[in-house]
């Protein structure tokens, strides 16, 4: 009470100085030739290689060398971050629905984004395959082997993971194509799932590093990557007779384009994904790509033909999402019934 407030003024000075330091560190001006690609988890290796190639290419066109930054996370969470203000100029996500969400909630992406680039704005595609233990000890060849008693299936939760929705739909499609009751079939499949991780990488870790389960339902690219990183002598890949055509789409985030230079860079970044060189990079990183002209034949030969059902087979995401994965949807009925 007796003390004067002089002391308070003394405190204020260092506080303000530190605050000003924080501001100056943060406000680093966004250089014209920098680009932020907000992507999803399994594309880390792909975009690391593509970003290096693209920076070279862009420079070879007579431009200054760009800085390409990447952010990876769960596809839905990444879309949410862009809506909340993460300054991505391009998004390369797992599901069209996630980019639709950005368009609907922030208006930063035009509604017709998917028609602005070839192949539904998907420069590469993937499918769902089985990763099994070396030598396939349980003899798992197709979806109907996975519903047998005593088989443990590892797949993430379709409520939270984009990849897991494809896993679920692939099984559904197999049942429908083979005249089985899909709901019963998928129910039997999920009864063989001992643990539902929240995301695809988590499931891969559960299967590969913690050694749980007999079969991992995985993105084809993830399965090959696990093979490459964790040892070809530990796992085998089994391609089922029916699977899905997953089209991870890309889009320009109009709302985050500051000037024409950035627009040119971001547009080229997306367009060059379709160039033979980039397609070869995608194939090398275990994605199925459209243009194989510059690819290593071994990278192309890796992928066997498979009957791939696109999301249209299931009525499009707008219908499949609420019907199967919404609150009280078919997945809830299947899973709560257990």
């Amino acid at each position, binding site marked *: 009470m007796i003390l004067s407030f002089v002391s308070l003024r003394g405190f204020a000075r260092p506080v303000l100085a*530190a605050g000003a330091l924080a501001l100056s560190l943060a406000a680093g001006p966004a250089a014209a030739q920098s680009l932020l690609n907000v992507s999803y988890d399994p594309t880390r290796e792909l975009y690391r290689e593509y970003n290096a190639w693209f920076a070279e290419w862009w420079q070879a066109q007579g431009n200054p060398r760009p800085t390409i930054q990447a952010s990876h996370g769960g596809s839905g969470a990444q879309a949410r971050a862009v809506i909340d*203000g993460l300054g991505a100029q391009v998004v390369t996500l797992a599901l069209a629905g996630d980019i639709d969400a950005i368009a609907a909630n922030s208006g930063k992406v035009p509604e017709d984004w998917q028609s602005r680039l070839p192949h539904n704005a998907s420069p590469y595609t993937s499918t769902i395959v089985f990763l099994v233990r070396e030598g396939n000890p349980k003899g798992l060849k197709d979806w109907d082997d996975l519903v047998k008693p005593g088989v443990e299936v590892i797949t993430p939760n379709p409520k939270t993971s984009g990849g897991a929705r494809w896993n679920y739909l692939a099984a559904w499609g197999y049942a429908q194509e083979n005249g089985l009751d899909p709901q019963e079939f998928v129910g039997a499949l999920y009864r063989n799932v001992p643990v539902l991780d929240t995301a695809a990488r988590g499931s891969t870790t559960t299967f590969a590093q913690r050694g749980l389960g007999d079969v991992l339902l995985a993105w084809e690219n993830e399965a090959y990557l696990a093979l490459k990183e964790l040892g070809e002598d530990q796992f085998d890949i089994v391609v089922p007779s029916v699977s899905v055509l997953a089209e991870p789409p890309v889009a320009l985030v109009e709302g985050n384009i500051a000037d024409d230079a950035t627009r040119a860079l971001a547009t080229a970044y997306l367009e060059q994904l379709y160039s033979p060189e980039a397609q070869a990079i995608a194939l090398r990183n275990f994605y199925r790509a459209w243009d194989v002209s510059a690819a290593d034949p071994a990278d192309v030969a890796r992928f066997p033909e498979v009957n791939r059902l696109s999301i249209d087979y299931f009525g499009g995401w707008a219908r499949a999402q609420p019907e199967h994965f919404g609150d009280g949807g078919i997945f809830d009925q299947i899973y709560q019934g257990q």
Partner: protein
Amino acid sequence: MTDITPTRWRPATTEPALVKWSLTGLCLAVLTVLLFAPLIAVFDEALRRGWAFALASLGDPDAQSAIRLTLVVAAISVPLNAAFGIAAAWAITKFDWRGKAWVITLIDLPFSVSPVVAGLLFVLMFGANSALGGWLVANGFPVVFAVPGIVLATMFITFPFVARELIPVMLEQGRAEEEAALTLGASGWRTFLTVTLPNIRWALLYGVLLCNARAMGEFGAVAVVSGKIRGQTTTMPLMIEMFYNEYLSVAAFTMASVLALLALVTLTLKSALEWRYADQLAATHRHH
């Protein structure tokens, strides 16, 4: 003369040897399983392919920028929190005012709020969809998904540490010395520098160490506001998770070892302080 039975006698304040040793053993066993073994496992994983490989992983530009960012964030948030902690402890212990108890509770809030909630709070406040956040982004000063957001989140999580250390010490010391200095004609600032600060310096250092350890290790709140841009808004704890998810386990565990070493250094300093300056650290220790 009566017979004394010496074998059965023991002071009433000690336990039988069996109880003593089994309790000690249990405690050590739990510590081994829960603390030492995992800690050793972290270092073991890091060195699985040798020292050279582990050290080389720290040379990765993303790893270096993560280390740099963590140090920058700690360098900003720890001094600010130290200043805040001193100011808060000063206001609470040297003055009487209404609502003091309420402010003390408020200072404790970050201890009880989940870090995820803290992170989301900043996204809500400064995200592009709030009025303030929208204005800041439009003027080229984004807070969330940029360094300021990470600093804010870290400060929020660590702000009780210094104040909580200082308040009991300053309460115990009372106001008499400051009042004496003032009546002798010292200015407020001089009173603080020559009377208060020397009295609280060890407690202050202790609080700063704890605050620093937490600031460098914070994951949850930072993960929400970071945007996870590699080489730009990725701190060490976030980088560890990313490396691990990319199957770069040596890089992940090497960085985890660096963080663990920082924590161990902090812990050692803290123990040294406790041992040397116990009487000046926490008022309650005085009456032992």
